[in-house]
């Protein structure tokens, strides 16, 4: 074995002797001159098949036909491949009367193709708060245990400590199968949250099409003139009724559809009868990393590209229920020691779900874990920043010791 290696090295070492190298190059030129014309064809026949494993020939045979080798860098032109698109995503404003507001959407280029055009508005993050105790992953719970069951305190913590741009109030208790809390009680919850923070709010229902409509109407009317995002309007609700009270009270509809762009278009068309384009945000369904994220990613990427190519029915800002990342068992479950600690694995699961969808074009993230929120905010800031990388410093990675 050792002997064989020695031999290999000698052969290889010889070849690298620079004089020999030149000699060899000349030799090959002579050898190949006669059938240089065929060399191209030969190559094709020698190319490993798409499926077959490649066979690596010894060094000598691999050396390609030698033309005059360049002695200096041959300059090539590079023009950034910039395109223009007929379509543009509408801008949607969410906000509070006398408080903060955000604008999302307005893109004229795929997500963060900033070589093409700048990103008009940074994507924003809304942190989830719940109006009652819900099952939470341990990694999340440890950060909010003092405010569970108190949505106003939770919202305050999320804005002041975790940096939320918005708050999503999940009105779980209105579910007829849970506590069946009345629309009036829901309004009280929203009121408490609205007083605790001055950021825009997302109003989340329970998933019951009839009860949600009743509660949304009460909330919309009580807070007429605010610009809440009503989450969500689905196909099996009384779409006309919901669209009408949303329009009348000045809020914004979140049109939720299950991973199907035709259904998304159809729901948007129904909403257009009553609402302006600027009053609609889309939720195309978020699946967790490992549990269908690829479908969610591609669905959103396609929607955004279609919007830019001029499909007006998909030209809305996109919202993602990124908290769904925690539905993946790998996010919360205790696993074998080599995958621990889950306190890091879980929030990273949420981060990677979010960043994947950020690159598909999501404008509004509904998230949960404070570390995940901070990371996604940092990345967005970096991508918006327009600063350049330091090339000289970067070269050092090859030799740096960590």
């Amino acid at each position, binding site marked *: 074995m050792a002997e064989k290696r020695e031999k290999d090295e000698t052969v290889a070492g010889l070849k690298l002797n620079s004089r020999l190298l030149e000699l060899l190059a000349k030799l090959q030129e002579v050898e190949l001159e006669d059938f240089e014309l065929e060399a191209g064809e030969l190559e094709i026949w020698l190319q490993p098949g798409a499926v077959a494993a490649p066979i690596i020939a010894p060094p000598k045979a691999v050396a390609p036909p030698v033309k005059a080798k360049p002695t200096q860098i041959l300059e090539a032109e590079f023009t950034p491949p910039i395109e223009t698109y007929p379509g543009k995503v509408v801008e949607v404003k969410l906000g509070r009367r006398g408080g903060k507001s955000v604008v999302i959407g307005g893109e004229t280029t795929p997500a963060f193709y900033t070589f093409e055009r700048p990103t008009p508005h940074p994507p924003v993050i809304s942190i989830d708060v719940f109006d009652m105790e819900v099952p939470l992953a341990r990694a999340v719970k440890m950060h909010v245990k003092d405010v569970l069951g108190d949505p106003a305190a939770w919202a305050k913590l999320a804005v002041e400590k975790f940096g939320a741009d918005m708050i999503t109030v999940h009105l779980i208790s209105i579910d007829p199968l849970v506590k069946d809390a009345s629309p009036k009680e829901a309004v009280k919850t929203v009121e408490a949250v609205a007083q605790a923070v001055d950021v825009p709010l997302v109003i989340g229902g329970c998933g019951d099409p009839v009860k949600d409509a009743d509660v949304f109407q009460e909330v919309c009317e009580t807070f007429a003139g605010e610009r809440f995002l009503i989450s969500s309007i689905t196909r099996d609700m009384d779409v006309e009724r919901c669209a009408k009270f949303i329009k009348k009270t000045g809020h914004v509809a979140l049109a939720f559809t299950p991973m199907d762009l035709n259904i998304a278009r159809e729901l948007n068309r129904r909403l257009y009868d009553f609402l302006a384009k600027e009053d609609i945000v889309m939720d195309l369904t978020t699946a967790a990393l490992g549990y269908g994220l690829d479908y969610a990613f591609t669905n959103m990427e396609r929607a955004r590209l279609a919007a830019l190519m001029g499909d007006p029915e998909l030209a809305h800002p996109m919202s993602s229920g990124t908290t769904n990342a925690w539905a993946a068992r790998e996010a919360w479950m205790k696993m074998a020691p080599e995958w*621990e600690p889950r306190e890091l694995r879980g929030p990273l699961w949420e981060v990677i779900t979010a960043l994947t969808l950020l690159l598909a074009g999501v404008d509004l993230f509904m998230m949960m874990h404070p570390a995940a929120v901070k990371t996604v905010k940092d990345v967005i800031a970096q991508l918006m920043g327009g*600063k350049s990388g330091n*090339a000289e410093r*970067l070269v*050092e990675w*090859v030799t740096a010791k960590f």
Partner: protein
Amino acid sequence: MSGKEGKVGVKELSPIDVYKLLPRTNCKECGEENCMAFAAKVVNREVPIEKCAPLLKKEFEKAYKQLKEMLKPAVKEVVIGTGEKAVKIGGKLVMYRHELTYFNPTAIAIDVTDEMSEDEILSRIKRVEEFRFEYIGQTLKLDMIAVRSTSNDPDKFKATVRKVAENTKLPMVLCSLNPTVLEAGLMAAPKTRPLLYAATKDNWRDMAELALMYGCPLTVFAPGNLKLLKSLVKTLVEYGVQDLVLDPGTFAGEGLADTLNNFTMIRRAACKHGDELLGFPLMGVPMTVWLDSAGLAQEIVKWREAYLAAMLIVRFADILIMHSLDGWALLPNVVLRANIYTDPRKPVAVEPGLRVFGAPDENSPVMFTTNFALTYYTVASDLESAKINAYLLVVDTEGLAVDSSVAGRKLTAEKIAEALKASGLENKVKHRKLIIPGKAARLSGEIEELSGWQVIVGPRDSSEIPKFLQEKWQTQA
């Protein structure tokens, strides 16, 4: 044929284009019914053109070459390593995965250096080799070892490369911008076809010679300068180096936008504008985050490296070099890679209907789940690994998971009641108890009303089914 016109976009390439160039004898040697069927599969990249044996005969040489050119991917496929563990990178036909599918999942290389102790090197190799995660029928793994020369000492590098080559068959990336050092490393493993890192504006000539002599693919490194990168490619191709990998620089932090822009511009130029000089695999180096790690907790740097890797997997990277070996940081990335490289043409759903696990009898539990492939396979593998005897009813939710199908009203009490009836379970079990997923708890009342079966709300995650059955089913039954 100049590259630009010669390359037909995947969208424009029709089976007819391929069919016209086939022998058209319908001889079935390829295993297809006729040439047209074969052409359709070729266009979808389900079979290589070489499966048509007659086409490889001398008389069809011209047609074969034309087909090869026609089917050439926008991003060249480059092979690193030899033998069974060789890794193919690149070979991309499209920019966006929905346009067809992505081939050759992003390879992940983990670094060792020539100044690490032997123990450390061996333990890192071992961890790379032993890394595996079972994910819906696939085994997710790491692919390569990147050997960096931090010493800049040829002898040290040579010894380290030898050590690595002796201890693993995984392909290597040899990293040093000093050709003398790199050459020393190559001498220790001359026939292993490692990826060389890297040719720069200063060393390209020597690196090209090494690549040619050893038959190795070569990385071109021109951080933040695509004109230079492209010029170097042009030069190296002219020099005779065929297999290149492009590293436009992985800037983290403030330079992140540059990184994404450069990767995106290169891939667009290759896939949409037929720019052959940029039609090579892209290398991302998430481990550059370690450059600014002074004073930071290790976990923070690993965290940054992990999410940078994820963004690069999504944005076109064909190979990554990483430093962290922590499972919590790598796991989400190998899963993400599996997701992004899943063929989007594959159905999202499994056949609805009744599935039998183990040997259930008339007292065995009855459960249901949705027909979203991932949900179904997760539940099925949990039942199988716990050796549970049970009936599992797969309800048609148009391929949605439990929570989204409840929210999107694809999973309703009506559907469940119908599926129960159609399954014939009433004749298979004596009891009338249905265990439902915890995430469908809100449907309990309605299901009981419509089906007449008693509902038991099960766990929210199927991993807890065995424990749940142990505690709840025996006592119920």
